[in-house]
Protein backbone atom coordinates (compact mmCIF):
# COMPACT_ATOMS: atom_id res chain seq x y z
CA UNK A 1 0.00 0.00 0.00
CA UNK A 2 1.38 3.44 -0.89
CA UNK A 3 1.48 6.33 1.50
CA UNK A 4 -1.19 8.12 -0.48
CA UNK A 5 -3.44 5.13 -0.21
CA UNK A 6 -2.66 4.72 3.46
CA UNK A 7 -3.82 8.21 4.21
CA UNK A 8 -6.88 8.41 2.04
CA UNK A 9 -9.29 10.05 2.63
CA UNK A 10 -10.88 13.06 4.25
CA UNK A 11 -12.84 12.44 7.36
CA UNK A 12 -16.46 13.39 7.88
CA UNK A 13 -19.55 12.67 5.93
CA UNK A 14 -20.32 16.15 4.66
CA UNK A 15 -20.27 17.00 0.98
CA UNK A 16 -17.06 18.16 -0.67
CA UNK A 17 -17.21 21.89 -1.40
CA UNK A 18 -14.05 22.01 -3.51
CA UNK A 19 -13.30 19.38 -6.13
CA UNK A 20 -9.99 19.27 -7.94
CA UNK A 21 -9.94 16.72 -10.75
CA UNK A 22 -6.79 15.78 -12.65
CA UNK A 23 -5.54 19.33 -12.57
CA UNK A 24 -2.23 20.27 -14.14
CA UNK A 25 -0.60 23.59 -14.74
CA UNK A 26 2.53 24.24 -16.71
CA UNK A 27 4.46 27.37 -17.59
CA UNK A 28 6.23 26.74 -20.87
CA UNK A 29 8.22 23.56 -20.30
CA UNK A 30 7.99 23.76 -16.53
CA UNK A 31 5.27 21.68 -14.89
CA UNK A 32 4.18 23.40 -11.71
CA UNK A 33 1.21 21.15 -10.82
CA UNK A 34 0.84 17.67 -12.28
CA UNK A 35 -2.38 15.68 -12.45
CA UNK A 36 -3.60 16.50 -8.96
CA UNK A 37 -7.00 15.33 -7.71
CA UNK A 38 -8.62 15.78 -4.32
CA UNK A 39 -11.76 16.94 -2.58
CA UNK A 40 -12.07 19.35 0.31
CA UNK A 41 -14.88 19.20 2.84
CA UNK A 42 -15.88 21.65 5.58
CA UNK A 43 -13.35 21.96 8.40
CA UNK A 44 -9.71 22.95 8.26
CA UNK A 45 -7.59 21.44 5.52
CA UNK A 46 -3.88 22.05 5.42
CA UNK A 47 -2.12 22.35 2.11
CA UNK A 48 1.38 21.36 3.05
CA UNK A 49 4.54 21.28 1.03
CA UNK A 50 8.05 22.68 0.75
CA UNK A 51 8.62 26.04 -0.87
CA UNK A 52 8.21 25.75 -4.63
CA UNK A 53 6.11 22.57 -4.38
CA UNK A 54 3.19 24.13 -6.25
CA UNK A 55 0.91 25.01 -3.32
CA UNK A 56 0.44 28.62 -4.32
CA UNK A 57 -0.23 27.74 -7.95
CA UNK A 58 -2.78 25.20 -6.79
CA UNK A 59 -4.47 27.70 -4.49
CA UNK A 60 -4.48 30.31 -7.25
CA UNK A 61 -6.20 27.85 -9.55
CA UNK A 62 -8.76 26.98 -6.86
CA UNK A 63 -9.50 30.69 -6.43
CA UNK A 64 -9.76 31.20 -10.18
CA UNK A 65 -6.91 33.70 -10.26
CA UNK A 66 -4.96 31.36 -12.53
CA UNK A 67 -6.26 29.12 -15.27
CA UNK A 68 -5.67 25.37 -15.27
CA UNK A 69 -3.69 23.95 -18.18
CA UNK A 70 -5.63 20.71 -17.88
CA UNK A 71 -8.29 19.24 -15.60
CA UNK A 72 -11.21 20.75 -13.79
CA UNK A 73 -11.85 22.62 -10.54
CA UNK A 74 -15.28 23.25 -9.06
CA UNK A 75 -16.33 25.13 -5.95
CA UNK A 76 -19.87 24.45 -4.72
CA UNK A 77 -20.31 22.50 -7.94
CA UNK A 78 -19.50 25.47 -10.17
CA UNK A 79 -16.42 26.29 -12.18
CA UNK A 80 -14.65 29.10 -10.37
CA UNK A 81 -12.79 30.61 -13.30
CA UNK A 82 -14.63 33.66 -14.67
CA UNK A 83 -17.47 33.03 -12.26
CA UNK A 84 -17.27 36.19 -10.20
CA UNK A 85 -20.56 35.58 -8.37
CA UNK A 86 -18.86 32.76 -6.43
CA UNK A 87 -16.61 35.26 -4.70
CA UNK A 88 -19.47 36.33 -2.47
CA UNK A 89 -18.96 32.92 -0.79
CA UNK A 90 -15.18 32.75 -0.93
CA UNK A 91 -12.57 34.69 1.02
CA UNK A 92 -8.99 34.59 -0.21
CA UNK A 93 -5.85 35.82 1.48
CA UNK A 94 -2.77 35.47 -0.69
CA UNK A 95 0.77 35.16 0.66
CA UNK A 96 1.68 38.60 -0.70
CA UNK A 97 0.96 41.77 1.23
CA UNK A 98 -1.74 43.00 -1.09
CA UNK A 99 -2.63 46.18 0.73
CA UNK A 100 -2.81 49.80 -0.33
CA UNK A 101 -0.18 51.55 1.75
CA UNK A 102 -1.97 54.89 1.59
CA UNK A 103 -5.29 53.49 2.77
CA UNK A 104 -6.42 53.38 6.39
CA UNK A 105 -7.05 49.89 7.70
CA UNK A 106 -10.75 50.47 8.23
CA UNK A 107 -11.17 52.01 4.78
CA UNK A 108 -9.52 48.94 3.26
CA UNK A 109 -11.84 46.53 5.04
CA UNK A 110 -14.82 48.75 4.16
CA UNK A 111 -13.85 48.86 0.49
CA UNK A 112 -13.55 45.10 0.38
CA UNK A 113 -16.95 44.81 2.04
CA UNK A 114 -18.48 47.20 -0.48
CA UNK A 115 -17.00 45.24 -3.36
CA UNK A 116 -18.49 42.05 -1.92
CA UNK A 117 -21.92 43.62 -1.50
CA UNK A 118 -22.01 43.39 2.30
CA UNK A 119 -25.22 44.67 3.91
CA UNK A 120 -24.99 46.69 7.09
CA UNK A 121 -21.46 47.51 6.06
CA UNK A 122 -20.28 49.56 9.03
CA UNK A 123 -21.27 46.90 11.53
CA UNK A 124 -19.68 44.16 9.44
CA UNK A 125 -16.46 46.16 9.16
CA UNK A 126 -16.30 46.83 12.90
CA UNK A 127 -16.98 43.17 13.64
CA UNK A 128 -14.26 41.96 11.26
CA UNK A 129 -11.71 44.40 12.68
CA UNK A 130 -12.57 43.41 16.24
CA UNK A 131 -12.15 39.76 15.29
CA UNK A 132 -8.52 40.40 14.40
CA UNK A 133 -8.05 42.65 17.43
CA UNK A 134 -7.02 45.74 15.50
CA UNK A 135 -9.67 48.28 16.47
CA UNK A 136 -7.04 50.61 17.92
CA UNK A 137 -5.12 50.81 14.65
CA UNK A 138 -8.12 50.91 12.32
CA UNK A 139 -7.79 54.59 11.47
CA UNK A 140 -4.06 54.48 10.66
CA UNK A 141 -2.73 54.16 7.10
CA UNK A 142 -1.65 50.58 6.48
CA UNK A 143 1.78 51.80 5.38
CA UNK A 144 2.47 52.44 9.08
CA UNK A 145 1.53 48.88 10.15
CA UNK A 146 3.93 46.12 11.08
CA UNK A 147 3.87 43.05 8.86
CA UNK A 148 1.80 41.12 11.39
CA UNK A 149 -0.74 43.95 11.61
CA UNK A 150 -1.06 44.09 7.84
CA UNK A 151 -1.69 40.35 7.80
CA UNK A 152 -4.41 40.70 10.41
CA UNK A 153 -6.08 43.61 8.64
CA UNK A 154 -5.99 41.60 5.42
CA UNK A 155 -7.64 38.76 7.30
CA UNK A 156 -10.34 41.17 8.49
CA UNK A 157 -10.89 42.21 4.87
CA UNK A 158 -11.09 38.53 3.91
CA UNK A 159 -13.65 37.81 6.64
CA UNK A 160 -15.81 40.91 6.25
CA UNK A 161 -18.37 39.20 4.02
CA UNK A 162 -18.37 36.06 6.18
CA UNK A 163 -17.47 33.68 3.36
CA UNK A 164 -18.30 29.98 3.44
CA UNK A 165 -14.79 29.11 2.24
CA UNK A 166 -11.55 30.68 3.42
CA UNK A 167 -8.45 30.11 1.30
CA UNK A 168 -5.32 31.29 3.07
CA UNK A 169 -1.84 31.13 1.58
CA UNK A 170 0.90 31.14 4.24
CA UNK A 171 -1.29 33.27 6.53
CA UNK A 172 0.97 33.06 9.58
CA UNK A 173 3.96 34.69 7.90
CA UNK A 174 5.10 37.62 9.98
CA UNK A 175 2.85 36.84 12.92
CA UNK A 176 4.33 36.78 16.41
CA UNK A 177 3.51 33.88 18.78
CA UNK A 178 0.60 35.72 20.45
CA UNK A 179 -0.88 36.62 17.07
CA UNK A 180 -0.45 33.04 15.92
CA UNK A 181 -2.50 31.74 18.81
CA UNK A 182 -5.18 34.37 18.19
CA UNK A 183 -5.17 33.54 14.49
CA UNK A 184 -5.41 29.82 15.13
CA UNK A 185 -8.33 30.28 17.54
CA UNK A 186 -10.08 32.45 14.99
CA UNK A 187 -9.73 29.87 12.23
CA UNK A 188 -10.79 27.09 14.56
CA UNK A 189 -13.97 28.91 15.54
CA UNK A 190 -14.64 29.60 11.88
CA UNK A 191 -14.34 25.93 11.06
CA UNK A 192 -16.53 25.05 14.06
CA UNK A 193 -19.34 26.96 12.35
CA UNK A 194 -19.28 24.35 9.59
CA UNK A 195 -17.27 26.49 7.20
CA UNK A 196 -14.33 25.42 5.08
CA UNK A 197 -10.81 26.68 5.71
CA UNK A 198 -7.92 25.80 3.43
CA UNK A 199 -4.60 26.77 4.87
CA UNK A 200 -1.35 26.58 2.94
CA UNK A 201 1.96 26.36 4.73
CA UNK A 202 5.46 24.99 4.38
CA UNK A 203 5.74 24.57 8.16
CA UNK A 204 4.58 21.20 9.43
CA UNK A 205 3.85 22.34 12.98
CA UNK A 206 1.66 25.19 11.79
CA UNK A 207 -0.61 22.81 9.93
CA UNK A 208 -0.41 20.15 12.61
CA UNK A 209 -1.89 22.54 15.19
CA UNK A 210 -4.82 23.52 13.01
CA UNK A 211 -5.72 21.10 10.27
CA UNK A 212 -7.89 18.01 10.58
CA UNK A 213 -6.98 16.95 7.07
CA UNK A 214 -3.83 17.58 5.11
CA UNK A 215 -2.88 17.55 1.47
CA UNK A 216 0.83 17.01 0.95
CA UNK A 217 2.14 18.56 -2.23
CA UNK A 218 5.63 17.69 -3.43
CA UNK A 219 7.09 18.67 -6.80
CA UNK A 220 3.64 19.62 -8.06
CA UNK A 221 2.12 16.26 -7.19
CA UNK A 222 -0.16 15.12 -4.41
CA UNK A 223 2.13 12.95 -2.27
CA UNK A 224 -0.47 12.11 0.36
CA UNK A 225 -3.81 13.27 1.62
CA UNK A 226 -6.10 12.53 4.52
CA UNK A 227 -6.23 12.63 8.27
CA UNK A 228 -3.26 14.34 9.82
CA UNK A 229 -2.84 11.77 12.58
CA UNK A 230 -2.74 8.91 10.08
CA UNK A 231 0.07 10.68 8.29
CA UNK A 232 1.85 11.32 11.56
CA UNK A 233 1.55 7.64 12.47
CA UNK A 234 3.00 6.66 9.13
CA UNK A 235 5.84 9.06 9.70
CA UNK A 236 6.53 7.55 13.14
CA UNK A 237 7.22 4.17 11.53
CA UNK A 238 10.05 5.41 9.40
CA UNK A 239 13.70 5.37 10.55
CA UNK A 240 14.81 8.62 12.13
CA UNK A 241 18.27 10.11 12.53
CA UNK A 242 18.76 11.83 15.86
CA UNK A 243 21.89 13.65 16.99
CA UNK A 244 22.71 13.39 20.70
CA UNK A 245 25.32 15.57 22.37
CA UNK A 246 26.55 14.37 25.75
CA UNK A 247 29.59 14.55 28.00
CA UNK A 248 30.40 10.86 27.42
CA UNK A 249 29.35 9.84 23.90
CA UNK A 250 30.98 6.40 23.88
CA UNK A 251 29.27 5.30 27.11
CA UNK A 252 25.92 6.56 25.89
CA UNK A 253 26.39 4.90 22.47
CA UNK A 254 27.15 1.60 24.18
CA UNK A 255 23.94 1.88 26.19
CA UNK A 256 21.76 2.92 23.25
CA UNK A 257 22.93 0.22 20.86
CA UNK A 258 21.33 -2.39 23.11
CA UNK A 259 17.86 -1.01 22.40
CA UNK A 260 15.89 -3.15 19.95
CA UNK A 261 14.51 -0.16 18.04
CA UNK A 262 17.97 1.26 17.35
CA UNK A 263 19.45 0.25 14.00
CA UNK A 264 22.77 2.04 14.31
CA UNK A 265 24.73 4.39 16.54
CA UNK A 266 27.63 6.35 15.04
CA UNK A 267 30.10 8.27 17.15
CA UNK A 268 31.16 11.26 15.08
CA UNK A 269 34.63 12.76 15.02
CA UNK A 270 33.48 15.73 17.09
CA UNK A 271 32.22 13.45 19.86
CA UNK A 272 28.55 13.73 19.01
CA UNK A 273 26.57 10.58 18.29
CA UNK A 274 24.02 10.04 15.55
CA UNK A 275 21.38 7.43 16.31
CA UNK A 276 19.28 5.70 13.66
CA UNK A 277 16.02 4.71 15.34
CA UNK A 278 12.95 2.94 13.97
CA UNK A 279 10.82 4.09 16.87
CA UNK A 280 11.26 7.68 17.92
CA UNK A 281 8.80 7.40 20.78
CA UNK A 282 10.83 4.52 22.22
CA UNK A 283 14.00 6.59 21.92
CA UNK A 284 12.32 9.54 23.64
CA UNK A 285 11.44 7.33 26.62
CA UNK A 286 14.63 5.28 26.81
CA UNK A 287 17.29 7.93 26.22
CA UNK A 288 16.90 9.75 29.58
CA UNK A 289 16.66 6.45 31.43
CA UNK A 290 19.79 4.99 29.81
CA UNK A 291 21.71 8.22 30.27
CA UNK A 292 20.88 8.20 33.96
CA UNK A 293 21.90 4.56 34.32
CA UNK A 294 25.21 5.20 32.53
CA UNK A 295 25.73 8.39 34.52
CA UNK A 296 25.98 10.42 31.31
CA UNK A 297 24.87 14.00 31.05
CA UNK A 298 22.88 14.66 27.85
CA UNK A 299 23.35 18.21 26.62
CA UNK A 300 21.29 18.28 23.42
CA UNK A 301 18.98 16.00 21.43
CA UNK A 302 18.35 17.09 17.87
CA UNK A 303 16.20 15.32 15.26
CA UNK A 304 17.93 15.41 11.90
CA UNK A 305 15.02 14.31 9.72
CA UNK A 306 12.29 16.68 10.79
CA UNK A 307 12.62 19.13 7.95
CA UNK A 308 9.58 19.09 5.72
CA UNK A 309 11.69 18.12 2.74
CA UNK A 310 12.88 14.94 4.43
CA UNK A 311 9.37 14.08 5.54
CA UNK A 312 8.14 14.51 2.02
CA UNK A 313 11.11 12.64 0.66
CA UNK A 314 10.12 9.70 2.81
CA UNK A 315 6.47 9.90 1.83
CA UNK A 316 7.17 10.16 -1.86
CA UNK A 317 9.76 7.43 -1.94
CA UNK A 318 7.94 5.30 0.58
Amino acid at each position, binding site marked *: MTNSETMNNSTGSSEAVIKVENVSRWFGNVVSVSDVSFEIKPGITGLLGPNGAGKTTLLRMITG*LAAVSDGNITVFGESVRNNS*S*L*YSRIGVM*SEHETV*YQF*MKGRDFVKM*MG*ELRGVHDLDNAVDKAIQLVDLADAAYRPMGTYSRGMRQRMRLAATLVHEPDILLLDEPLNGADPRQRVHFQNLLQSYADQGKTVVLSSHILEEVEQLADTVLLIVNGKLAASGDFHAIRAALNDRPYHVRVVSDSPRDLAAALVKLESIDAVNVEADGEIVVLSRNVRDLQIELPRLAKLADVRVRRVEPLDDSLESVFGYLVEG
Partner: protein
Amino acid sequence: MGSVYKLALRQLSGRWRLLITLLLTALPVIMGITWRLIEGDRFPDNDFQDLALNGMLAGVIIPLVTLAISSAAFSNEIEDRTLANLTLSPIPRWKIVVPKLLGALTVSGAFLVTSAFITSYIAFSGDLDAVLAVTAGAAISVALYSSLFVWTGLMTTRAIGYGLLYIFLWEGLFAGLVSGVRFLSLRHYSLTVMHRLDDRLFSTSEFLSTGVVTGAAVTVFVIFLALSIRRLRRMDVP
Protein backbone atom coordinates in the same frame (compact mmCIF):
# COMPACT_ATOMS: atom_id res chain seq x y z
CA MET B 1 -18.27 50.70 -9.34
CA GLY B 2 -17.89 53.70 -7.03
CA SER B 3 -15.32 51.94 -4.85
CA VAL B 4 -13.14 51.01 -7.81
CA TYR B 5 -13.44 54.51 -9.27
CA LYS B 6 -12.44 56.14 -5.98
CA LEU B 7 -9.56 53.69 -5.63
CA ALA B 8 -8.38 54.46 -9.18
CA LEU B 9 -8.52 58.20 -8.52
CA ARG B 10 -6.43 57.80 -5.37
CA GLN B 11 -3.93 55.47 -7.01
CA LEU B 12 -3.43 57.71 -10.03
CA SER B 13 -3.09 60.89 -8.00
CA GLY B 14 0.37 60.37 -6.59
CA ARG B 15 2.17 63.60 -5.79
CA TRP B 16 4.99 63.19 -8.30
CA ARG B 17 2.70 62.04 -11.07
CA LEU B 18 0.48 65.09 -10.61
CA LEU B 19 3.42 67.47 -10.36
CA ILE B 20 4.97 66.25 -13.62
CA THR B 21 1.56 66.33 -15.29
CA LEU B 22 1.04 69.88 -14.11
CA LEU B 23 4.41 70.97 -15.48
CA LEU B 24 3.80 69.30 -18.84
CA THR B 25 0.30 70.67 -19.26
CA ALA B 26 1.53 74.16 -18.37
CA LEU B 27 3.79 74.27 -21.44
CA PRO B 28 1.07 74.96 -24.06
CA VAL B 29 -0.44 77.57 -21.76
CA ILE B 30 2.95 79.30 -21.58
CA MET B 31 3.15 79.17 -25.39
CA GLY B 32 -0.32 80.71 -25.65
CA ILE B 33 0.64 83.51 -23.30
CA THR B 34 3.86 84.09 -25.23
CA TRP B 35 1.95 84.29 -28.53
CA ARG B 36 -0.50 86.77 -27.08
CA LEU B 37 2.27 88.95 -25.67
CA ILE B 38 4.18 89.00 -28.96
CA GLU B 39 1.37 89.08 -31.51
CA GLY B 40 -1.29 91.09 -29.71
CA ASP B 41 -4.83 90.34 -30.89
CA ARG B 42 -3.82 88.61 -34.17
CA PHE B 43 -5.59 85.26 -34.77
CA PRO B 44 -2.99 82.52 -34.27
CA ASP B 45 -1.60 81.50 -37.66
CA ASN B 46 -0.76 78.06 -39.02
CA ASP B 47 2.72 78.14 -37.46
CA PHE B 48 1.30 78.56 -33.97
CA GLN B 49 -1.40 76.00 -34.62
CA ASP B 50 1.14 73.48 -35.91
CA LEU B 51 3.64 74.09 -33.15
CA ALA B 52 1.47 74.55 -30.06
CA LEU B 53 -1.73 72.65 -30.84
CA ASN B 54 -0.63 69.94 -33.24
CA GLY B 55 3.04 69.44 -32.32
CA MET B 56 3.04 70.09 -28.62
CA LEU B 57 -0.49 69.50 -27.29
CA ALA B 58 -1.91 66.83 -29.62
CA GLY B 59 1.42 65.30 -30.63
CA VAL B 60 3.34 65.06 -27.38
CA ILE B 61 1.66 66.23 -24.19
CA ILE B 62 -1.75 64.56 -24.51
CA PRO B 63 -0.35 61.15 -25.48
CA LEU B 64 2.50 61.31 -22.94
CA VAL B 65 0.31 62.31 -20.02
CA THR B 66 -2.39 59.78 -20.85
CA LEU B 67 0.28 57.11 -21.29
CA ALA B 68 1.75 57.85 -17.86
CA ILE B 69 -1.63 57.88 -16.14
CA SER B 70 -3.74 55.35 -18.04
CA SER B 71 -1.12 52.62 -18.32
CA ALA B 72 -0.72 52.83 -14.54
CA ALA B 73 -4.43 52.16 -13.99
CA PHE B 74 -3.72 48.44 -13.96
CA SER B 75 0.04 48.00 -14.32
CA ASN B 76 0.77 49.33 -10.83
CA GLU B 77 -1.78 46.96 -9.33
CA ILE B 78 -0.36 44.06 -11.29
CA GLU B 79 3.11 44.94 -10.08
CA ASP B 80 2.19 45.23 -6.39
CA ARG B 81 -0.31 42.34 -6.68
CA THR B 82 -3.25 44.32 -5.32
CA LEU B 83 -5.30 43.64 -8.45
CA ALA B 84 -6.46 40.37 -6.87
CA ASN B 85 -8.37 42.44 -4.29
CA LEU B 86 -10.64 43.54 -7.11
CA THR B 87 -10.77 40.42 -9.24
CA LEU B 88 -11.65 38.27 -6.22
CA SER B 89 -14.82 40.29 -5.73
CA PRO B 90 -18.24 39.18 -6.95
CA ILE B 91 -18.42 41.85 -9.62
CA PRO B 92 -18.14 41.35 -13.38
CA ARG B 93 -14.86 42.36 -14.99
CA TRP B 94 -16.36 45.30 -16.88
CA LYS B 95 -17.27 46.84 -13.53
CA ILE B 96 -13.56 46.89 -12.77
CA VAL B 97 -12.31 48.09 -16.15
CA VAL B 98 -14.86 50.85 -16.73
CA PRO B 99 -14.29 52.70 -13.43
CA LYS B 100 -10.54 52.25 -13.85
CA LEU B 101 -10.77 53.85 -17.29
CA LEU B 102 -13.02 56.59 -15.93
CA GLY B 103 -10.52 57.23 -13.15
CA ALA B 104 -7.69 57.55 -15.68
CA LEU B 105 -9.86 59.80 -17.84
CA THR B 106 -10.74 61.99 -14.88
CA VAL B 107 -7.17 62.51 -13.73
CA SER B 108 -5.56 63.05 -17.14
CA GLY B 109 -8.62 64.84 -18.55
CA ALA B 110 -8.71 67.31 -15.69
CA PHE B 111 -5.23 68.51 -16.57
CA LEU B 112 -5.24 68.12 -20.35
CA VAL B 113 -8.68 69.50 -21.15
CA THR B 114 -8.09 72.41 -18.79
CA SER B 115 -4.73 73.03 -20.43
CA ALA B 116 -6.33 72.95 -23.92
CA PHE B 117 -9.09 75.29 -22.79
CA ILE B 118 -6.77 77.85 -21.16
CA THR B 119 -4.24 77.71 -24.01
CA SER B 120 -6.88 78.26 -26.68
CA TYR B 121 -8.72 80.86 -24.64
CA ILE B 122 -5.54 82.91 -24.30
CA ALA B 123 -4.21 82.28 -27.81
CA PHE B 124 -7.54 82.90 -29.55
CA SER B 125 -8.50 85.84 -27.33
CA GLY B 126 -11.58 84.12 -26.05
CA ASP B 127 -12.92 83.25 -29.53
CA LEU B 128 -15.48 80.67 -28.39
CA ASP B 129 -15.63 78.66 -31.62
CA ALA B 130 -11.88 78.09 -31.56
CA VAL B 131 -11.81 77.46 -27.82
CA LEU B 132 -14.61 74.90 -28.09
CA ALA B 133 -12.93 73.20 -31.06
CA VAL B 134 -9.55 72.86 -29.39
CA THR B 135 -11.06 71.76 -26.07
CA ALA B 136 -13.33 69.17 -27.69
CA GLY B 137 -10.46 67.85 -29.85
CA ALA B 138 -8.30 67.49 -26.75
CA ALA B 139 -11.07 65.75 -24.79
CA ILE B 140 -11.64 63.21 -27.56
CA SER B 141 -7.92 62.63 -27.84
CA VAL B 142 -7.66 62.00 -24.08
CA ALA B 143 -10.52 59.50 -24.23
CA LEU B 144 -9.02 57.56 -27.14
CA TYR B 145 -5.47 57.43 -25.78
CA SER B 146 -6.79 56.47 -22.34
CA SER B 147 -8.71 53.53 -23.73
CA LEU B 148 -5.64 52.41 -25.69
CA PHE B 149 -3.16 52.80 -22.82
CA VAL B 150 -5.36 51.19 -20.16
CA TRP B 151 -5.33 48.11 -22.37
CA THR B 152 -1.57 48.41 -22.90
CA GLY B 153 -1.05 48.50 -19.13
CA LEU B 154 -3.00 45.26 -18.81
CA MET B 155 -1.13 43.56 -21.62
CA THR B 156 2.46 44.21 -20.66
CA THR B 157 4.66 45.38 -17.82
CA ARG B 158 6.55 47.44 -20.41
CA ALA B 159 3.56 49.61 -21.28
CA ILE B 160 5.52 52.85 -21.03
CA GLY B 161 8.19 51.64 -23.47
CA TYR B 162 5.71 50.35 -26.04
CA GLY B 163 3.59 53.46 -25.55
CA LEU B 164 6.53 55.74 -26.28
CA LEU B 165 7.37 53.76 -29.42
CA TYR B 166 3.77 54.08 -30.53
CA ILE B 167 3.62 57.82 -29.83
CA PHE B 168 6.85 58.77 -31.52
CA LEU B 169 7.04 56.22 -34.33
CA TRP B 170 3.42 55.67 -35.30
CA GLU B 171 1.74 58.95 -34.37
CA GLY B 172 4.79 61.18 -34.75
CA LEU B 173 6.69 59.73 -37.69
CA PHE B 174 4.58 57.42 -39.85
CA ALA B 175 1.32 59.38 -39.55
CA GLY B 176 3.20 62.48 -40.70
CA LEU B 177 5.00 60.79 -43.58
CA VAL B 178 2.47 58.28 -44.91
CA SER B 179 -0.92 59.76 -45.67
CA GLY B 180 -2.76 56.44 -45.38
CA VAL B 181 -1.60 55.99 -41.77
CA ARG B 182 -3.66 59.03 -40.80
CA PHE B 183 -6.76 56.87 -41.05
CA LEU B 184 -5.36 55.00 -38.07
CA SER B 185 -3.93 57.95 -36.17
CA LEU B 186 -5.59 59.08 -32.95
CA ARG B 187 -3.81 62.40 -33.24
CA HIS B 188 -5.31 62.90 -36.68
CA TYR B 189 -8.80 62.19 -35.34
CA SER B 190 -8.27 64.87 -32.71
CA LEU B 191 -7.09 67.46 -35.25
CA THR B 192 -10.01 66.56 -37.53
CA VAL B 193 -12.46 67.30 -34.72
CA MET B 194 -10.79 70.66 -34.13
CA HIS B 195 -10.96 71.49 -37.83
CA ARG B 196 -14.56 70.36 -38.27
CA LEU B 197 -15.73 72.46 -35.31
CA ASP B 198 -13.81 75.51 -36.49
CA ASP B 199 -12.53 75.42 -40.07
CA ARG B 200 -10.08 78.25 -39.39
CA LEU B 201 -7.98 75.70 -37.50
CA PHE B 202 -5.50 73.70 -39.60
CA SER B 203 -7.13 75.18 -42.68
CA THR B 204 -4.36 74.02 -45.02
CA SER B 205 -4.49 70.37 -43.98
CA GLU B 206 -6.58 67.56 -45.39
CA PHE B 207 -8.92 65.74 -43.08
CA LEU B 208 -11.25 62.79 -43.04
CA SER B 209 -14.98 63.37 -43.11
CA THR B 210 -16.83 63.96 -39.85
CA GLY B 211 -18.70 60.68 -40.21
CA VAL B 212 -15.57 58.63 -40.79
CA VAL B 213 -13.73 60.20 -37.87
CA THR B 214 -16.71 59.82 -35.54
CA GLY B 215 -17.10 56.16 -36.50
CA ALA B 216 -13.37 55.49 -36.25
CA ALA B 217 -13.04 57.22 -32.87
CA VAL B 218 -16.00 55.39 -31.35
CA THR B 219 -14.71 52.10 -32.76
CA VAL B 220 -11.21 52.61 -31.36
CA PHE B 221 -12.56 53.55 -27.92
CA VAL B 222 -14.97 50.63 -27.74
CA ILE B 223 -12.52 48.08 -29.16
CA PHE B 224 -9.79 48.86 -26.63
CA LEU B 225 -12.30 48.96 -23.78
CA ALA B 226 -13.62 45.55 -24.87
CA LEU B 227 -10.07 44.21 -25.24
CA SER B 228 -9.25 45.36 -21.70
CA ILE B 229 -12.31 43.59 -20.29
CA ARG B 230 -11.42 40.46 -22.26
CA ARG B 231 -7.83 40.59 -21.09
CA LEU B 232 -8.83 40.95 -17.44
CA ARG B 233 -11.16 37.99 -17.84
CA ARG B 234 -8.53 35.72 -19.37
CA MET B 235 -5.29 36.71 -17.71
CA ASP B 236 -3.71 35.04 -14.71
CA VAL B 237 -4.01 37.67 -12.02
CA PRO B 238 -0.82 37.81 -9.93
